[in-house]
């Protein structure tokens, strides 16, 4: 006697209307490409993040050319020669007499793909004697494009891990507060408010000050994640708690209680799963906070330390207006931060609208 009506969950319905929104789908693709770029950064980047050559400090981009006097000769770049002008400023000149072919799948700096497979294979590269700078070089002559790819590993993963931690805390705290209500709810929500009360950036600095100076880069990475999660969980907990307050009135929660199931199981199986679709929108909207938080810390030198790259510490080069004037390409990391943050926001907003019953009625 099974009814053959096709069942689509609320979330699937939301996903359908999400797909109709071109802008949001576009943003999703941007993020997909960014994350893929971060995962395969070792392979995609021409150089390692620490491969430097001080003779190429702030070397401008070396455009890849394909034609020579109208004839196809395959990709190549010209060499750069360094001269100094009358103010002893570096001036790079394109040396059209020296031509270096750009090759695919070349051997280069050693790395371990996904941290496991040792390899020297890089997607693109040029032979010794010239350096390939797709978007330019930084102060130490490191390839900015490579460093942006490596920086994505840190900047993009901090958002995900951070949100994972604070989301777990938010789920538990919000679930418990919403399920039990009464004084438990009161205590937990006042705690949330205390965290939310302090302006985020100052809390960030204060917590960072509590982290020992002698941490190595991995420890700093995790310290930043923990600090950001500590700031982020409260907002999520409040959202979840609000949903649980109404969900606990559902009859299946009463039925589960009447069957003697433990509170833990009821919260975990009968309340929290129903908050998931709405939480996904909340999560999307909160990820930019982590990315910007890491960038802010790294920008002022309290986050990821050189030689490791993150989008935030790549931007710290931009603190001098003179440098921006002579090497405007060092603004590129900002473009990537901007695109990522706005993509997450658009996706989150669209998801929220798709899940909102009021909007659903409007669309009909």
């Amino acid at each position: 006697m099974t009814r053959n009506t096709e069942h689509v969950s609320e979330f699937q319905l939301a996903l359908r209307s999400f797909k109709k929104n071109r802008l949001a789908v576009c943003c999703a693709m941007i993020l997909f490409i960014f994350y893929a770029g971060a995962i395969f950064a070792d392979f995609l980047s021409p150089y390692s993040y620490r491969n430097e050559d001080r003779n190429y400090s702030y070397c401008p981009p070396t455009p890849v050319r394909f034609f020579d006097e109208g004839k196809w000769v395959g990709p190549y770049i010209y060499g750069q020669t360094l001269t100094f002008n009358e103010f002893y400023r570096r001036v790079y000149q394109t040396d059209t007499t020296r031509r270096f072919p750009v090759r695919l799948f070349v051997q280069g700096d050693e790395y371990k793909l996904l941290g496991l497979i040792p390899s020297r294979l890089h997607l693109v590269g040029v032979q010794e004697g010239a350096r390939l700078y797709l978007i330019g070089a930084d102060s130490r002559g490191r390839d900015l494009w490579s460093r942006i790819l490596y920086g994505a590993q840190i900047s993009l993963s901090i958002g995900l891990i951070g949100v994972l931690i604070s989301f777990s805390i938010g789920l538990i705290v919000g679930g418990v507060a919403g399920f039990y209500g009464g004084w438990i709810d009161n205590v937990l929500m006042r705690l949330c408010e205390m965290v939310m009360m302090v302006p985020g950036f100052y809390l960030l600095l204060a917590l960072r000050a509590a982290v020992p100076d002698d941490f190595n880069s991995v420890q700093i990475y995790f310290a930043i994640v923990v600090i950001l999660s500590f700031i982020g969980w409260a907002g999520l907990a409040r959202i979840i708690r609000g949903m649980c307050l109404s969900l606990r009135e559902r009859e299946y929660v009463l039925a589960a209680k009447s069957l003697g199931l433990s509170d833990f199981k009821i919260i975990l199986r009968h309340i929290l799963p129903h908050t998931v679709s709405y939480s996904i929108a909340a999560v999307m909207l909160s990820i930019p906070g982590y990315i910007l938080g890491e960038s802010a810390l790294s920008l002022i030198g309290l986050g990821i330390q050189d030689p490791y790259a993150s989008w935030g510490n790549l931007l710290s080069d931009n603190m001098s207006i003179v440098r921006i004037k002579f090497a405007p390409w060092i603004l590129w990391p900002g473009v990537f931060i901007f695109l990522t943050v706005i993509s997450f926001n658009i996706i989150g907003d669209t998801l929220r609208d798709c899940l909102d019953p009021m909007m659903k009625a409007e669309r009909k």
Partner: protein
Amino acid sequence: MQDAILKINHLTVAVQEFNKETLLVNDLNLEIPRNRITALVGSSGSGKTTTGLAILRLLPQALYMKKGAIVWEGQDLMNLSENQMRLMRGKKIGMVFQEPLNAFNPVFTIGFQIGEVLKQHTTLSGPKINDEIVRLLTTVGVDDPPRILNSYPYQLSGGLRQRAMIAQAIAASPSLIIADEPTSNLDVTLQAHIMELFRKLRDELKMTILLISHDLGMVVHLAEQVAILANGRMVESGETKSIWQHPRHPFTQQLKQKMVI
């Protein structure tokens, strides 16, 4: 007098509304004899569901028990700790709700939700749980247990869903089942089938049943005892046959003629 599995003494449930206390259940006394079907009949809003929930100590937050005792085998349930009470729910006293579509969680299969009860209250594990679910579904008269087990609540018809919920309620073999209007959303033939199932639970599984209904005519063939509830007060109680044949209270007469629902 038959020995009573549950005694409700002076049960009074109240709600505070606009600084005024309203009694939803007013000094209710009821004895539920073992291995019998006792019916609690009253019009809608008379406090039947509230009584059922008070027994399990699951009253909605706004409601509170003002007075009274609920005595289970000599022990007042009001004196139990929350943990002890949880061991009573499902294991000693099971409850069947009016609308199984709402009482099942829509995102899990029927089998999963019955299995949850078995995991909570029995020592069964792994494939044995599955066997037990199939056995339970067979007991409640489901034809194709393996298929039902993997179905989601919305995929089943009303009758099957109600059977599945009864299977869930009896999973930990409680001695008392509180069935809150278990058939009022079903058509007449299905109602008869479900009533037959309760008879079977009493006769074959030796269960005690508190059958809540607004339809006196439907419980009359099944219940040995009946208590009539009006506006939170019990107006009449006793053997079903004598009450059906000689209703004393005018409200019972109305119920009999289905003048009130």
